[in-house]
């Protein structure tokens, strides 16, 4: 009774969708790879969903880079065209997006997505099709242990090494002045945890006692309990493996409990322009690692900052810089081997070239090890007189390091 009708409907639907499958692939205009005077580059970014906000910075960086390239003669003399898909902050989607970019839209090159959690599934697709995969956001140590030989991280250092200069600085202090105890609170996210635990490993090595070690889920909104533990320990140094809002919440919760550490370091958040607004006038002395500063003197950086500021009104941030760096890295390889097409042979040449050469970028000269780890280090910034300034390493410092943080 119902069975045959349902069967008929299903069969009809199957037939219909078979006929319609073309729609999915041809629906997006994209950039046909067959076009001779353009090079199309496919990117999937979290334009909506949980990672959409930081993802926007990467998008701006990519778009600025493409615009700059086209104003300056293009890539290999051809126009650069970006095809950006929205991965909705989901791993399933990010893989499907690259699958589509490579197979259906026929892009010549691909750039990496945003957020560590999406890098691995995307890199897998790229690897399977033999594509070069330079990415602006997968800094977690685990990204580089998956056996991807096509992956390169376009930033100075992987997450564990972000605090290296701070660790060096503490190590250089007379033992009596070093912090004795440390409290760590990190978001359960490969990148954020990577930064905090990188520093933790170094500090523990030099005998700084870990008194609090908390990991919280990414969706945590109530930090009062973590703050209570930190405050109770009264640690000398507070290290936050944070992204953005969690740092704001954690700092507010710590203030509510009147906890005053001698040093407080948080990843990512303090470099965000909205951070001082959210914290108010209590930012003084807060430390943060950064891979990029608009004031850096690398040759290409001036062009970048000028172009970007003219385009968007504000100077670029770290996400924008990493995206731009990705563009620079790929462009350098393309210009060097003189090819940019999806053919595996060309892609392999690009990969091989990057493994062996140094690239000048807005974050400095970059080289990679065989697994794609960049071989640089992050600078350390600190809020000094209400402005965030580079304080370490000393040869790049814009301001004096504040050794004892004023109360917040």
């Amino acid at each position, binding site marked *: 009774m119902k069975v045959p009708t349902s069967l008929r409907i299903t069969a009809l639907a199957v037939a219909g969708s078979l006929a319609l499958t073309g729609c999915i692939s041809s629906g997006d205009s994209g950039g046909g790879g067959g076009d001779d005077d353009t090079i199309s580059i496919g990117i999937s970014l979290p334009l*909506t*969903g*949980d*990672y*959409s*906000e930081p993802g926007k910075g990467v998008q701006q960086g990519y778009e600025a880079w493409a615009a700059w390239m086209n104003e300056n003669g293009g890539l290999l003399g051809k126009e650069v065209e970006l095809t950006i898909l929205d991965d909705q*902050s989901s791993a399933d989607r990010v893989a499907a997006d690259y699958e589509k970019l490579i197979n259906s839209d026929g892009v010549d090159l691909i750039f990496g997505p945003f957020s560590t959690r999406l890098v691995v599934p995307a890199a897998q697709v790229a690897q399977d099709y033999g594509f070069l995969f330079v990415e602006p956001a997968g800094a977690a140590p685990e990204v580089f242990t998956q056996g991807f030989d096509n992956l390169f991280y376009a930033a100075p250092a992987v997450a564990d090494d972000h605090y290296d200069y701070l660790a060096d600085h503490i190590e250089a202090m007379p033992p009596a002045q070093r912090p004795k105890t440390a409290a760590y609170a990190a978001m*359960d996210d490969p990148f954020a945890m990577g930064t905090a635990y990188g520093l933790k490993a170094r500090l523990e090595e030099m005998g700084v006692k870990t008194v609090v070690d*908390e*990991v*919280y*889920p990414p*969706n*945590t*909104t*109530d930090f*009062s*309990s*973590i703050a*209570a*533990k930190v*405050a*109770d320990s009264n640690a000398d140094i507070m290290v936050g493996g944070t992204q*953005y*809002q*969690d740092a*704001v*919440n954690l700092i*507010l*919760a710590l*203030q*509510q*409990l*009147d906890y005053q550490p001698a040093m407080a370091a948080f990843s990512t958040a303090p470099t965000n322009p909205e951070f001082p*607004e*959210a914290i*108010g006038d*209590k930012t003084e002395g807060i430390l943060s690692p950064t891979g990029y500063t608009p004031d850096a003197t690398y040759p290409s950086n001036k062009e970048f900052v000028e172009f970007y500021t003219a385009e968007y009104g504000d100077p670029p941030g770290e996400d924008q810089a990493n995206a731009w760096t990705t563009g620079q890295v790929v462009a350098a390889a393309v210009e060097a081997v003189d090819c940019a097409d999806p053919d595996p042979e060309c892609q392999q040449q690009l990969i091989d070239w990057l493994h062996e050469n140094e690239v000048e970028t807005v974050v400095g000269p970059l080289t990679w090890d065989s697994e794609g780890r960049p071989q640089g280090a992050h600078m350390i910034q600190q809020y000094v007189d209400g402005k965030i300034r580079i304080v370490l390493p000393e040869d790049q410092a814009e301001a004096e390091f504040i050794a004892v943080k004023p109360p917040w």
Partner: protein
Amino acid sequence: MSLLLQSLVLGVLLGGLYALLAAGLTLYFGVMRVVMIAHSAFLILAAYLAWFWTTETGIDPMVSLLWTVPLFFVTGVLIQRLLISRLRPATLTMMSVLLTFAVALVIEGTLGFVFTGTQRRVQLPYGGADISIGGVNIAVVKLIAFGLAAASLLALYLLLTRTKFGQALRATIQHPEAARLVGINTERTAGYGFGLGLATAAIGGTALSLDSTIYPSLHWHWIGPLMAIIVVGGLGSIPGAAIAAMVLGVGQSLLQIPLGTTWAQTFFYIALFATLMIRPQGFFGGRLAQRF
């Protein structure tokens, strides 16, 4: 020791908010046998409205209660009238879950659409202020949120026990057929019950906005613990829900000391499973679970 005391205080403050929200969920379940999945989505919606109000006008978020509470009450009545009451009684429990789930998705999607997925937080001049009593620091915003929740719960309690409408509502919860027999318009009462439930979400959301970051998908973070609370408290029992909220809120807060944030959250779910295994009708009253 001071950490223990501090955590205890934090737990009580948190438990107050849980209690108010769980009371709302219990109301829906009581009057309609509906598990209102969208409750926490409305909570977040209210928090967004409070945040939006404050960023646009610069006036304290608590003032937004003046219009969010009536708005939510009316919305609640309308949801009951226009959506829930359309469902067939035979499949009401299941279908209402799906329907309110759909409402939650629509709210989450719309919030993301309008306000993007960015995390938001109301900036208050007293955001980081605290009061110190006997070695325990209490954040002013948390105290206000707790006060708001406690006052609303008290008002709800008085409404239920001291007014004619409250009697009708309780009768409808306990025995709808009997309530109809004594001349109570249970349909209308159920509508108002729904409105009241949603009003608790408005108050809770405003309280939440004082001291928390909000983002569209945050409601999933709340609905789990809240559902655990109403089951542990005994589906349909408001005092049960309030007690369970306190116990679980304090428990979670204390367990964070040895277990850390993540594992402490599982406390709610362990309590939920334990309740269903040992005493499915809940530990504090309500026996409605037995039949539904």
